[in-house]
């Protein structure tokens, strides 16, 4: 298994790949003024590392994100969708993520390979 970790100001994004399957896990808090400045380069690296992989992106452990994080989050999901392999995106069914789960389920209908799932908070 190969692992990558990206961390900035309370936000931790870890990725791992074993063969044709990969996982991206978000945790901590994303509330910086310009999350794109950190996340866009992370996205570019991850898309290179995870080329041709089936990817699960797990946001369920993310404690908080500001509205400025939404754009780079969508950009990552859209970039993964373009890989052409099945992508699963997980949100928590608890509290602040519940609206995101609902909205992403609606929005993801325009993406060919993305499935949105809800997971009860552990």
């Amino acid at each position, binding site marked *: 298994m190969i692992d990558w970790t990206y961390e900035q100001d*309370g936000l931790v994004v870890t990725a791992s790949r074993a063969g044709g399957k990969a996982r991206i896990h978000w945790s901590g*808090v994303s*509330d*910086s*003024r310009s999350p*794109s400045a950190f996340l866009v380069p992370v996205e570019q690296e991850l898309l290179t590392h995870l080329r041709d992989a089936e990817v699960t992106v797990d946001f369920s452990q993310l404690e*908080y994100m*500001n*509205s*400025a994080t*939404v*754009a*780079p989050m*969508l*950009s990552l*999901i*859209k970039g993964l969708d373009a890989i052409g392999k099945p992508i699963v995106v997980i949100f928590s069914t608890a*509290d*602040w993520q519940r*609206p995101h789960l609902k*909205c*992403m389920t*609606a*929005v993801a209908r*325009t*993406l060919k390979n993305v499935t949105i799932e809800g997971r009860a908070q552990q």
Partner: protein
Amino acid sequence: MQPEFQTTIRPVWHYVREIRTHVGEALANYPSEVRTAATITAAELLENAIKYGESMTQAPSIQFSLAVNNDELRIETVNGCTNPRGLKELRDRIDELAAARDKVSLYLTRLEELLARPSETGKLGLYRIAFEGEFDVVCTIKDNIVTVTATRKIS
């Protein structure tokens, strides 16, 4: 005792996280959904005040307040701003929210725009306050002092 919290801050980003934490603590005895809505709303209002506000003689800092009166939760920011384009955009967005029967549609439309054009950012905070937080938002602008007030019922 009804929770109440007021503070004045310089437009420095780290205060957003601090105040978000204070808001959560002030509402510790309230339902999780209310606490979450309030912390999101407080943070998004403060982010806007810092990003788009200006320090002026009449308003050198940003004022933030949280109050619960009877069954109503009220979160407010006050800051200076002389940018006419920014002020118009604020008014337009709040008027749009007030007129919208279905706030989730505004939010979804903006998400779809961001999905289609990932290099775009912003213009989601007020929608988030209205949709996720279920707050009503109004603003008053007088002598370049902007007061944005978000209110919602607790029960």
